[in-house]
């Protein structure tokens, strides 16, 4: 087929997946929080409230889009775009199966991090352009938070890269096939410190409780999105959930074998691989939402202190340890 047509179809698939995720995840959040909080959550709109997010999105489409008079108009308009588009771009490198990768490049992980580091710029633009002190404070917090934790997150992913020998996400998934110690699947999750460091750093990067300082509802009204209404707000809201999905998907790819099913050869599962991938990702998302509904929020100076003083040295140290263990293992056993 025409290469342009394929490219457009792939783009539309990514966009469709992002919107589908948004709809499902918002509903899932409300239901998970409700059940955790001995409530029921949406029930009236559709069987068990399944159409609730659809109605929410439709309503947001028809709300008046208020642009306050004193905002920086260009930035105010662009900020949701700057937040939304990188999120969409990061979908391109996720491997859904051996062949279902939109952008199968040898630097997939690096691409992901590079693209996701643009998001804080968008949030800063949103907070600044709103001409609202509350948004401004939220934006400053986000910049501090995300700049602090980008490096530990990347460092925490380095052991995985070392173990797989490549930065391509498809290669990383492939390196997790098979078993070791006869029964355990060769998931990188057994490198537990790397998983823990990555998960914490990633929670902070995606701005989820206990680290949702930028949108701390009880403190900052609605944080950086205070002045946004209608679909601009919808885009920001959707992008936040999309980031959570991406984070969970990346965790699954790096640590939990991606689209592979344990103990079953990769060839047999190609036709269910995307479903397996989505199921694993949603289990991770459920876990993140459960944390959101339970834990209190950490304070901004405590969080920054933890990032610089604890996570960064720990991630560095673990990179060294992993490298050392790999080299020793190779010397003893021979190259894998």
């Amino acid at each position, binding site marked *: 087929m025409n290469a342009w047509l394929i490219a457009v179809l792939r783009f539309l698939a990514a966009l469709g997946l992002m919107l589908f995720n948004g709809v499902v995840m918002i509903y899932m959040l409300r239901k998970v*929080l409700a059940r*955790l*909080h*001995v*409530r029921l959550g949406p029930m009236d709109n559709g069987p068990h409230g399944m159409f609730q997010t659809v109605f929410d999105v439709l309503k947001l489409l028809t709300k008046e889009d208020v642009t306050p008079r004193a905002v920086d108009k260009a930035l105010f308009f662009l900020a949701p775009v700057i937040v939304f588009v990188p999120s969409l771009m990061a979908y391109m490198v996720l491997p859904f199966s051996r062949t279902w990768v939109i952008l199968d490049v040898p630097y997939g992980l690096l691409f992901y991090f590079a693209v996701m580091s643009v998001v804080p710029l968008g949030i800063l633009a949103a907070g600044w352009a709103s001409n609202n*002190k*509350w948004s401004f*404070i939220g934006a*400053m917090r986000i910049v501090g938070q995300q700049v602090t934790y980008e490096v530990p997150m990347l460092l925490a992913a380095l052991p995985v890269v070392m173990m797989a020998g490549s930065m391509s996400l498809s290669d990383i998934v492939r390196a997790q096939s098979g078993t070791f110690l006869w029964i355990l699947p060769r998931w990188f999750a057994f490198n537990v410190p790397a998983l823990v460091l990555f998960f914490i750093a990633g929670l902070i990067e995606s701005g989820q*409780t*206990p680290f*949702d300082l930028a949108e*701390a*509802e*009880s*403190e*900052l*009204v609605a944080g950086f999105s205070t002045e946004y209404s209608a679909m601009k707000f919808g885009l920001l809201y959707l992008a936040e959930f999309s980031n959570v999905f991406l984070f969970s998907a990346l965790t699954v790819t790096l640590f939990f074998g991606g689209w592979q099913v344990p103990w079953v050869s990769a060839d047999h599962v190609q036709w269910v691989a995307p479903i397996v991938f989505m199921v694993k990702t949603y289990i991770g998302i459920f876990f993140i939402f459960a944390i959101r*509904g*339970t*834990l*209190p*929020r*950490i*304070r*901004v*100076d*405590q969080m920054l202190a933890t990032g610089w003083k604890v996570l960064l040295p720990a991630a560095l140290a673990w990179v060294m340890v992993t490298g050392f263990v790999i080299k020793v293992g190779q010397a003893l056993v021979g190259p894998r």
Partner: protein
Amino acid sequence: MTVARGVLERAAVAASIETVESLGAVCRVSSSDARKALVALRDSDLAVGFLVDLFGIDTGEAVDIVYHLRSFARDEELVVKVEHGYGSTLESVWDIFPAALMPERETAELFGLELAGHPNPKRLLTTDGCPPYLRKSLVVRSAEEVRDRASQHVDATSLDRTAGSLAGGFAEPGVAEPGASLDATPIPAPKPLPVPRGLKRAPSGVDIENSDRLVLNMGPQHPSTHGVLRLILELDGEEIVSGEAVIGYLHRGIEKLAESRRYSAVGTLLDRGDYVSGIHAELAFALATEKIAGIEVPRRANYLRCLLGELNRIASHITWYGPMGLDSGAMGPFLYTFRDRETILDILEDITGQRMMFNYVRPGGVVNDITTTAEAKIRAFLDEFAVHVDENDELLMGNEIFQARTQGIGVFDRETALGFGLTGACLRGSGVDWDIRRDRPYAAYDELEFDVPVAEEGDVYARCAVRLEEMRQSARMIRQCIEGLPEGEHTAKVAKVLRPPAGEAYGAVESPRGELGVHLVSDGTDSPYRMRYRPPALYALQAGEAMLPGLLIADAVVLMGSMDLILGEVDR
């Protein structure tokens, strides 16, 4: 009393001291001697260093400013009355008693006095142009005016929302150094209490254009400030340099309207003051009325008052605990504890007929007896609650993030807490062991066994821990009330339209927020002449406001949460 007379004679203050029945020793001084007298009394052996309340009474010819003082060391109370003519100047005593800061502003604006020597002489509750509401010459709307509601016009676009200046014009917000005196005799400087820095540089006086500080407005509509509280914060980055609390957004005239209600109906107003602990407010009023009228309350009624009071205390602490978790970001405790609150409200509805505004405790006793269904529900609730309170304790108080957020924040030491007139859990969290239920027993508390939790650290976490333990003690008391409920009448024989003889009394209860007192002046008619509601949350608010400098925004939210404010009570 003789000690007081001797003290005042030595200070060369002309005073008349008499004992008013049901109120105690009342000392009357002239307005020019007021400050001298207060300092002399505070520094003498009487050691009346705690200002319980400061308010005014319009006697028809002048305004009596009442200073209700207490000595913890001697466990004595003293009331000092100072007569001020209409439109005269009220000299501030904030450097003698820092607790006087907000009550003086309120008294000056509601009685039309000028305020001198005060660091922040602005109106507290009303906006510019409002008349002095508590003066007897001002009448409330008549029934015709109310029926004619449609003709009340409001120009919504030109409403003023700022705190205005006091009528008559005042000096700009000035700086009153502690120890500075207004007359020739220098007043010895007291042990330095933290000067509210927020008042030294009132944020409204900051030159915003030329300063690199951010002036942030929190409220009155804000998801976290409990009720319509407005905090004006001056920030350096995220750190608060000074803060000012602006209240009055819920000022609805409970004290004024009580003067036109019958004694059995005043409870409806008080319910809506501190709206999460209505029983306690009603009880304070009933105690004051019973003191004046000399009514003897039957034992069963007292037990019922205690029973519902303690149920109400648990409900109120739950209403505090949930938002405390929300303030720090945890959504879970709010919903888990509200299950218990629903059960309690169900029980209260069973007994009183209402979930929140009970009007159940009346002078003489209570309105109706307990029902058998309620008894069963209470027992079931107690069993459930014993498990839940431990769970919720572990969930929030045991959480490391919450502890990191609350330990070491907003520390009140003993002197500061006493100087600001704090009572209740805020005072006990700073190490002062004072509980009205045990130290000035009312209702059936002298027959019940309970412990009073006290913490030493004085930070937010200490206050939270004190309140959690109070919940457990309340459950213990409820069980004793239910099991030991005596036979008898649920109310004394009281006239349907109660007309107590002329007199004055002060009834105080330990409400979940602190000492809730009602100072009642009756003139023999079927309505109170003056009902003063001493709001514990107002004193907690001004103490919290003084602690704001140096905290981060997130800490300010948590600090205000720990002071347990209910704005209905603060604004009245």
